[in-house]
C-alpha cells in the first residue's frame, strides 16, 4: 500500500512568503531570506532558505551579523503564519486522502492506497499534490514510496516529485545524507567521526557492531536507511478550524492596502474550504491596532485592553466566493473603519455544508444569494448605516404583535428561505384576486404636527403646512390606547377627515395625542 509525503523545505520562510501578496511572495522565494526570532536586540536567525545559506547565513546569527551578508532579506518569525501554513498543508493532504499524518509542522504523510483509480499512476498523483500545494501558496517536495518513512526521507532529500518503485528503497535512498533521518546530535556526530555520511554507508554497516555502539536506536536507523520499516500512520483528527492570520511589519492605515491583504487571506481561506468541500456563512475579522499611548481610541476598545477592532459578517446561505466576501468586508469597513493603523489581521470562519438547491423548471427567478448580499450591503451604505445608528433601513418589514400604531421591525431579507410553502401558488393567487382592493394608507414618519379648529367637538379646519384647509367630512373619534403598564403607553383619539385641496379631494387620518395634548396627521389614504 503506497504512501505519499509532502515536505516543505525552509518552512518558516514559506509560511511568511505564503502570507505575503502574490507579487511579493514570488519575489521573496527568489531572494535570500532569513527568519529571525526573539525580542531585539537578542533576535537570532532560526531559519534561512538555500540562497541565504549560500550567502553565509547560519542559524544562531544575530541580526547585526545577518545584515552584514549582502542581499539577504530579514523577516521576523510568525508562529501564527506557520500555524496557518501547517493547517493549509493538512487541508491539501486531506483533499486527497482521509488518512493523513502530521509528522512535523512542515511534513505530512498520506495513505494513497486506492487513489490510482482517481489520479492514475503515482507519478501523476505526486504532480497533482505539488500543484494543489502551489494553489495554497507554498512550494514543497512530494515523494511516493511503499512505506511512510521512506516517503518522508525521500521528500526531505529529493527536490520536486519523486516516486520510489517497490523494492528499490535502499537503492534510491542510498545517496541521501544521514541527516535526513534526523538522528540525535550525538549519534550524528558519532557517525560523522566514523566517516558515515550517506544512508548507503550506514546501511552497509554490520548490524551487531552498530547495536553494540548505538543500541536499538542505531538498529532502527539502519532499517530506516534501507527503507525497510513499516508502520501505521497516526491520522490527524483535527477540529475543523479555519483561521488565517497575518502580522504586518509596517502598520496599515488606509483601507485600500488593507483590502489587498484581506483579499489574500480570503483567497487562502476559501481555497482551504473548497479543498474540504465546505463553505461558510460566518466570517470573523479581528484587527489588532497600533495604539499610540497618547491617542484616545474609540469607545469600543476598553481602557487597558489590547486595542482590537472586530467585525463579524453573517450570511444567510453558506458561500465559497472570496470576491463576495471581500466586497462585503470592504463595505463593512467603510461604514465601520478601525480607529488606528492595523498591525495584525486575523480571519476566522465557521465551516458549513455548501448550499444545495434544486431549481425547478418553472420556479420563480430569485436574486442570487451572492449578488443579493453585496447588493444589500451597498444599499445599506447608500441609505446611510452610520456608526451609532441603531435603526435598520433595509430589509423585510415584520409586523409586531402589538396594537401600538405603526409597530413593525425590519428583519434581514432572505427570499430563498421565506414564503408560504404549503399552499399551491395558483390557489394563493386566486384567493388574492377574489378579494376586493383594500384601501391603503401612506403614513408620515414622524407624524406631522397639526393645528385643528374644532366646531362642536368636530374638526372644522386644519392648519397644515402653513395652509388653512376646511374639513368637508369627518368620522370619529375612536380612542386608541394601550400598554398603560409600560413606560411608554399611548392614548389617542383618531379621526378620518376628508378635505378639499386645490387638485381635488384628499383623505387623512389625524389624531389627538392625549399625552402631549397635540394634534398630528398619522397618514394619508391613498
Amino acid at each position, binding site marked *: 500500500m503506497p504512501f505519499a509525503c509532502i515536505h516543505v523545505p525552509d518552512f518558516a520562510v514559506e509560511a511568511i512568503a505564503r502570507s505575503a501578496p502574490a507579487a511579493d511572495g514570488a519575489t521573496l522565494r527568489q531572494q535570500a531570506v532569513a527568519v529571525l526570532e526573539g525580542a531585539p536586540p537578542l533576535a537570532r536567525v532560526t531559519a534561512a532558505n538555500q540562497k541565504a545559506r549560500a550567502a553565509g547565513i547560519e542559524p544562531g546569527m544575530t541580526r547585526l551579523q545577518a545584515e552584514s551578508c549582502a542581499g539577504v532579506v530579514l523577516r521576523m518569525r510568525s508562529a501564527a503564519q506557520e500555524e496557518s501554513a501547517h493547517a493549509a498543508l493538512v487541508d491539501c493532504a486531506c483533499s486527497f486522502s482521509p488518512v493523513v499524518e502530521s509528522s512535523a509542522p512542515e511534513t505530512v504523510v498520506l495513505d494513497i492506497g486506492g487513489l490510482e483509480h482517481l489520479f492514475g499512476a503515482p507519478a501523476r498523483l505526486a504532480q497533482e499534490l505539488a500543484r494543489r500545494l502551489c494553489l495554497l501558496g507554498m512550494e514543497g517536495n512530494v515523494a511516493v514510496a511503499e512505506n511512510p518513512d521512506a516517503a518522508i526521507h525521500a521528500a526531505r532529500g529529493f527536490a520536486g516529485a519523486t516516486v520510489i518503485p517497490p523494492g528499490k528503497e535502499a537503492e534510491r535512498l542510498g545517496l541521501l545524507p544521514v541527516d535526513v533521518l534526523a538522528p540525535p546530535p550525538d549519534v550524528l556526530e558519532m557517525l560523522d567521526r566514523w566517516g558515515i555520511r550517506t544512508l548507503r554507508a550506514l546501511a552497509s554497516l554490520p548490524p551487531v557492531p552498530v547495536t553494540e555502539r548505538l543500541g536499538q536506536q542505531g538498529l532502527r536507523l539502519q532499517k530506516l536507511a534501507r527503507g525497510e520499516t513499516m508502520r501505521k500512520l497516526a491520522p490527524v483528527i483535527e477540529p475543523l478550524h479555519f483561521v488565517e492570520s497575518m502580522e504586518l511589519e509596517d502598520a496599515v492605515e488606509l483601507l485600500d492596502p488593507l483590502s489587498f491583504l484581506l483579499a489574500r487571506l480570503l483567497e487562502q481561506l476559501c481555497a482551504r474550504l473548497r479543498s474540504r468541500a465546505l463553505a461558510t456563512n460566518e466570517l470573523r475579522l479581528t484587527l489588532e491596532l497600533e495604539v499610540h499611548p497618547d491617542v484616545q481610541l474609540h469607545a469600543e476598545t476598553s481602557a487597558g485592553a489590547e486595542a482590537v477592532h472586530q467585525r463579524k459578517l453573517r450570511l444567510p446561505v453558506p458561500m465559497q466566493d472570496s470576491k463576495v466576501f471581500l466586497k462585503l468586508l470592504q463595505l463593512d469597513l467603510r461604514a465601520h473603519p478601525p480607529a488606528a493603523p492595523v498591525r495584525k489581521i486575523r480571519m476566522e470562519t465557521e465551516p458549513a455544508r455548501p448550499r444545495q438547491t434544486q431549481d425547478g423548471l418553472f*420556479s420563480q427567478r430569485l436574486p442570487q444569494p451572492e449578488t443579493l448580499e453585496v447588493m444589500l450591503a451597498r444599499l445599506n451604505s447608500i441609505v446611510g448605516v452610520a456608526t451609532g445608528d441603531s435603526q435598520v433601513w*433595509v430589509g423585510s418589514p415584520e409586523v409586531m404583535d402589538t396594537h401600538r400604531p405603526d409597530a413593525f421591525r425590519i428583519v434581514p431579507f432572505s427570499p430563498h428561505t421565506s414564503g408560504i410553502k404549503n399552499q399551491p401558488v395558483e390557489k394563493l393567487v386566486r384567493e388574492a384576486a377574489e378579494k376586493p382592493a383594500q384601501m391603503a*394608507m401612506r403614513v408620515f414618519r414622524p407624524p406631522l404636527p397639526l393645528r385643528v379648529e374644532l366646531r362642536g367637538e368636530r374638526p372644522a379646519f386644519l392648519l397644515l403646512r402653513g395652509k388653512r384647509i376646511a374639513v368637508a367630512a369627518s368620522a370619529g373619534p375612536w380612542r386608541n390606547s394601550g400598554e398603560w403598564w409600560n413606560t411608554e403607553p399611548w392614548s389617542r383619539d383618531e379621526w*378620518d377627515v376628508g378635505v378639499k385641496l386645490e387638485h381635488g379631494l384628499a383623505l387623512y387620518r389625524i389624531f389627538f395625542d392625549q399625552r402631549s395634548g397635540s394634534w398630528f396627521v398619522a397618514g394619508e389614504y391613498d
Partner: protein
Amino acid sequence: MRFSSHVVRAQVEAALESRFPSALSFVPRPQPEMTWTGIAAVDAACGGLPRGALTEVCGPESSGRTTLLLSLLARMTQRQEACALIDAGDSFSPHSAAGVDLSRLLWVRCKRTKRDLHVLEQALKAADQILQGGGFGLVVMDLAGLEVQAVRRVPLASWFRFRRAVENTPTLFLILEREASAKTCASLVLQLRLREEVWASGKSVPSHAQVLAGMKLEVEVARRHSSSIHDHPALLEQKKPATAARIWGAPAEKTEAGIFHARTEWAV
C-alpha cells in the same frame, strides 16, 4: 446598370449578417408579458402592466396609487416572486399591506432629510443597485411623497438608464409619483384620481357613527407604448412595408371601466 432597392438591401444585409443580423429588415418586437394588478377595472383599462418596461402611476394625494401598488404586491408575492420597494418618503405601512407576503418584500427606506434632493439621490442610487442586481419580479420606486419640483430635476438619462436595465428582463419597474416625469422612457402611464369618498352613513348622523367605507377612484391610461406597428391604422391604410418605428402618444383612454372601488375592511 440599375439595381432594384430589394437587391441592394439584400446585398447589404448579407454583408452585415455576422455583425447585425437583418440590419435593414423590420424585426417585430415580441409582445411584453403583462401582469395583472388584481384590480379588475385597472386591468381592463390598460390590459395589465408590462414586464421588462417602466410604468408610471401618477396622481395627487388620495388618488389610489398606494392601493394599486399593494394589490400588485399581493399578487406578485403570492406568486413567490421577490419584490423591492424603494420608499423615498419612508411612508410604506406594513399594516396596510393585507395579502402581501412581507418576507418577499425588500423595503429600502430612504432616510428623511430636510432636502428632498438628497432623498431622491438615495432612491435613484438604490434603484440602480437593485436593477443591476436583478432577480426581482417587481421593483417599485415610490416618489409620491416628494415635491414635484424635485422629481422634475431627475435627468432623462436616468430614466433611460432604468428602462435599459429592465429591458429583456422579467422585471416590472413601477414609479409612483404625483405627475409623470419619465416622458418617453415609460411604456405605460396611468393617471389616477379620487372621484368620490364613500362614507358608510349619511352626514346627518353623529360623527362617531360615520365610517369611512372606501373611495371611488378613476384610472386613465395617459400614455401607452404600442409595440406592434401592424396595429397602427395609419400604416395599414398606406400599405407600406413595415419599418422599425414606434408609435407614441396614443390618445387617452378614459372609460367607465376605469373606475374602481377601494374598500376599507373593519375588524368588528
